[in-house]
């Protein structure tokens, strides 16, 4: 409440906010847990004056006012403290007395979250739950026509190839003739996409890496994780676990000196090098690590001063054409590891993807192409970029694959898809759909945060404060008071659970196709969709 009631344009009431705090006076124990845990101080203890007018029946006595005071939880309406709907209050409330409720109408906060002329920046996702991938169905169920398999009983070898695969006529030549055989990795098709050390808390990052190591060493699943742009802790670089890691280089080049220093001491080669040219969540914009999160540790790993915001430029400096950027970067990165490590670019999905792909097809060193769709997540970006820029992944991957088919190289350059896979929780179905549309593998980030660490973000603009270091689950915070809430062992265990269950679900989809040893990449006759135009566009079956 504004005591004086003086109006200014950005003065908001609770009704104007996206999230309302519902608080039950009857249930509240006034324990203080909710206000202590609220990441943005959206609630406080309020003092309330209450007037009652007890009137005797029959008006036999003269009525009077009875004033009293009570204490209760009050929502703050200042936009800087607007509730983000994370629900931590609800999580810690012993009596279920408090929880956030989403405003059904368009909130007015939206119109005022640009004080000082600074547009809204946030982390998270696109806030649009629509998904073409969710609507794709697997319509080829081969009970009797193909040797259908039993997902629970049969053994599957779900692997994909990352690397430039020589055409058969080249592959059969002895190496003395070919000179060099491009390195190819046989990996699990679900990759943890680039989330930097810095974007994620140390406990989260370590948990993910530990889970990946467990999957490889204990369960024999060759799962790989990309570092994102922020360097790699020196110890990991010098450990055998580095072979489970895809190192990313992006336009900010953060942390690469540490990697160069580690090169002579590395026990193992990394899985691959990903050159990031674009990110699906904020195409056309570079990376951004806001100052809140650049503490001494992060600064040291990135090689920058502490407490400064770290933007990466939207483009790589010193590269002035597609031919040059791609060729120059791929050559340099191959050379660093003696041409033993596959190098591939990652771009945001765009109408110009095919130009990049055709360029790569002509470059015998290009190991793959990763395309990140509009639904990708981010730790920090302008709201407008996240919500309104970028290309959906499904048609972009499909176009890319069909283009490879046209030039006869669909088995030579793998395409990896990212962005919005599993955004509504349907990870295996979305992954399988993209594989059948032509992807060789899938990159996921947000899904891992949600499933492995309990990220509360949703497509309904819930939480989304990854950028300011206050992540209530400790996933994207660099504040030990917050990230120590997250136990790396628990994250690692959840990574293992996620992969195990994904594996079972993927088998459930692939078994009826009779596939147990090779992924049905591009097997588009197995999928259909109930929308005619989408079916036409994706060149898949129209099923109604």
């Amino acid at each position, binding site marked *: 409440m504004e005591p004086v009631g003086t109006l200014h344009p950005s003065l908001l009431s609770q009704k104007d906010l996206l999230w309302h705090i519902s608080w039950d006076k009857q249930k509240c124990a006034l324990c203080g847990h909710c206000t202590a845990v609220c990441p943005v101080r959206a609630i406080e203890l309020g003092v309330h004056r209450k007037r009652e007018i007890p009137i005797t029946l029959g008006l036999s006595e003269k009525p009077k006012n009875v004033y009293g005071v009570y204490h209760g939880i009050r929502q703050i309406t200042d936009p800087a403290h607007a509730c983000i709907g994370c629900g931590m209050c609800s999580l810690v409330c012993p009596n279920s007395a408090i929880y956030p409720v989403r405003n059904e109408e368009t909130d007015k906060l939206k119109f005022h979250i640009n004080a000082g002329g600074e547009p809204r920046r946030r982390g998270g996702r696109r806030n649009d739950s629509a998904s073409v991938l969710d609507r794709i169905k697997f319509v080829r169920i081969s009970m009797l026509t193909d040797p259908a398999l039993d997902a629970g009983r049969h053994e599957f070898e779900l692997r994909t190839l990352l690397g430039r695969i020589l055409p058969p006529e080249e592959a059969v030549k002895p190496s003395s003739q070919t000179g060099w055989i491009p390195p190819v990795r046989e990996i699990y098709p679900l990759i943890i996409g680039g989330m930097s050390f810095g974007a994620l808390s140390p406990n989260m990052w370590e948990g993910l890496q530990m889970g990946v*190591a467990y999957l490889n060493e204990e369960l024999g699943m060759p799962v790989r994780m990309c570092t994102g742009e922020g360097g790699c802790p*020196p110890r990991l670089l010098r450990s055998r676990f580095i072979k489970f890691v895809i190192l990313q280089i992006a336009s900010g080049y953060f942390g690469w000196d540490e990697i160069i220093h580690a090169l002579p001491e590395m026990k193992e080669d990394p899985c691959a090098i990903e050159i990031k040219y674009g990110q699906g969540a904020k195409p056309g914009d570079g990376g951004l690590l806001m100052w809140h999160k650049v503490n001494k540790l992060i600064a040291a790993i990135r090689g920058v001063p502490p407490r400064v915001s770290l933007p990466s430029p939207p483009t790589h400096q010193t590269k002035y054409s597609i031919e040059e950027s791609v060729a120059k970067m791929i050559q340099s990165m191959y050379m660093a590891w003696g041409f033993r490590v596959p190098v591939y670019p990652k771009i945001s999905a765009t109408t110009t993807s095919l130009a990049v792909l055709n360029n790569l097809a002509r470059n015998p060193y290009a190991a793959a192409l990763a395309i990140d769709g509009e639904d990708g997540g981010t730790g920090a970006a302008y709201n407008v970029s996240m919500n309104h820029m970028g290309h959906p992944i499904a048609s972009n991957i499909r176009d890319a694959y069909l283009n490879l088919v046209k030039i006869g190289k669909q088995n030579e350059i793998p395409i990896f898809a990212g962005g919005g896979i599993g955004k509504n929780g349907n990870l295996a179905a979305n992954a399988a759909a993209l594989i059948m549309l032509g992807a060789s593998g899938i990159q996921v980030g947000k899904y891992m945060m949600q499933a492995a660490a309990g990220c509360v973000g949703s497509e309904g603009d819930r939480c989304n404060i990854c950028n300011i270091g206050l992540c209530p689950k400790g996933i994207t915070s660099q504040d030990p008071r*917050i990230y*120590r809430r997250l136990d790396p062992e628990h994250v690692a265990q959840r990574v293992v659970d996620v992969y195990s269950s994904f594996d079972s679900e993927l088998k459930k989809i692939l078994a009826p196709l009779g596939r147990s040893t090779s992924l049905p990449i591009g097997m588009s006759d197995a999928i259909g969709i109930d929308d005619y135009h989408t079916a036409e566009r994706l060149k898949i079956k129209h099923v109604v």
Partner: protein
Amino acid sequence: MSRQEKIIITGAEDTVRIESRVLEERIQEAVEQGYRKIGVQSFGQHGIGGRLWNSDSETVEIDIYGYSGQRIGSMGSPTTYIEVHGPASDDVGWLNAGATIVVHGDATNGVGNAMAQGKIYIEGDIGARGMTMTKSNPHYTPPELWVLGGVGDSFAEFMAGGVAVICGFDSHYRDNILGHRPCVGMVGGRIFFRGEHHGYSEGDAKLVGISDADWGWLTENMQEFLKAIRCKDLYEELTRERSQWRLLVARQPHEKARKKRMAMSEFHSRVWDRELGKGGLIGDLSDMDRSPVPLITTGVMRRFVPSWENHKYLPPCQTGCPTGIPVQKRWELIRKGKVDEALDLALMYTPFPATVCGYLCPNLCMDGCTRAKHFLPAIDVTVLGKAGSDAHEPKPARPTGKKIAVIGGGPAGISVAWQLWMNGHEPVVFDRADALGGKITSAIPHSRFAKELYEQELKRVADKISYRKLESGLDSGTFLEIRDSHDYTVIATGAQIPRTLNIKGYKRALTALEFLQRSKEDRIKPGKNVVIIGAGNVGCDAATEAHRLGARDITLLDIQEPASFGHERKQAEMAGAKFLWPVFTRAITAKGVELADGRFLKADTIVFALGDLPDVSFLPEGIDLLKGYISVDEAFQTTDAKVFAIGDTVRPGLLTDAIGAGRKAAQAIHARLSGTDDTFDRLPPIDTRRVKMEYYDPRIKTGADLGQCASQCASCGGCRDCGVCEVVCPQQAISRRDLQQGDYEYVVDENLCIGCGFCAGACPCGVWELVENTPLG
């Protein structure tokens, strides 16, 4: 009507194989006819020997010769005994419900698939998927499968009951007599086996020790098996060593949940940290503890910590008072019953707590009162002011021997002299008048204040401060003489030169100062019609006085909306004064005032009340002016470091502005003389949103008496010692601690505090604040 002779049924007629249906009909017919021994010459027909339940509970023996066909003995009856004289095809004993089936040779895939009762004896190996989907029905004896050799892949999938015995004798499978991945989905039954194997589905089955009872069962039933397959001579070899045998059983559901894996905590310490080093991923970069903490934390792990900010901010009343009187502190003293102290305290700030605070001041302190922002009446400070005359006289500090000249004996001069006297200095006031007092004495109408109170307050000062009359006025020579014979000089000569308008006939008008001075002594008769040019507060005073002296038609003119307010304005209005604006005067005639718009106002007396300018003619070079006033810095120091200037010589203002300036100048002079910092009143104002007015009853109107006023003061930024924080803290982390001299503080036990901010939320005075904890890492 059974027939003991054996009937031979052949599966071919004239070298042509007959259909399975026909052969089945002939076998069923033979049983119907009473045959109990049937030989079948098979040509691969389906399901031979099954479903023979019409034998009146007598055993039917079937001997199968030739190519045995699929599903021998399927849906077999307990009274059926089948011997296959040679190898058997797929699915021997499929859905067997009790038949005993002996195969003198190998059997291919699917042996015993889904059998629920009966026995299958195999004198050789079997193919894939043997003993799958077998059942265990509590009403019947469970099924058995005995295999002399080994079994093919996927053995015992989804096995739910019965016993399988794999003897591992002379098997084709040699080093893996259980085949690839046996026991997937096994939920019941037992598998005895002997010989090498390559593992089984550990999530579903487990190896257990063979008990004496198990061994007894195995060796006993082994005899029957070997007898059936006519290999009795192997008994010795197969039962010689119990240790050659292993027993697999299904895991119980609670054991089955997950295949045993390394615990993540073990992986963390034994694999992860061993490879990376102590502290894991970043153990070399940081020694920060990263172990898990709960969501609700105490001590150093709290995100926010409460801070008891008692008197760290100024309340709005004190911020608003130009004199800087700690109004809130006075109410606090009254609440504590220290009424005298509350009155005395004011004297430390102003020599006129009664006359000014109680009567003449517009009480800016009340303008900012937090109560007003909550639609509650501000605390009426005039109640306190009017009570001020009973104050005790303060004792001055030890004499310093420092002499300060104060030129001008009005409110500003008296204020600075009073403050300097209290600090032990020797102020001397110079003035042209006969005594101290200035405009309050000479120009402000008596109706506006209590004369006796004023005289009492003036006397209190006059008794202590030396006063020298400047007989010959003030010129620059006199000024320099004064300045050079004192440590500091303060100019407080006020504004003495009235502004007039340069219009025709302006000399016919009086200035407000002249008018008020003469009216105060009743030396003027203004007549019936009075026009006052300038409708400020001084104009209002003139109007009130004119009315007192008989005027009945009083008009105040202004070129803009009149700036007058408060008592002055109210009293003028009560006197019937009219306010005309915006108007411009063109000329003054003997009859009255001519306005620019042509109107004419009749007037017996015309007064200019357009403000006054200071007389600066005595100032020497080196003291700069700014727009006609003396230029000073924040501490009222002029461009001559030895000279200060205050009051209306600096800028026109209220009495409280003049008194405040005197206090600040005195403070600055005292600081310079004693070599200390003049740090007074430098605290920031409190954010009044921190103050909770909800604790107060909106029905109570303040102003009745001192006690009631004091009780309703919210004490912004100053602890009321109410104890709400102690009670509201859910952790009982807050306690009150006594300090010396009756002082106290509230402290937080950081090992209990969770940083919820309830103290800040509940504190009536806004003393508690929740602040971010010092960053870690």
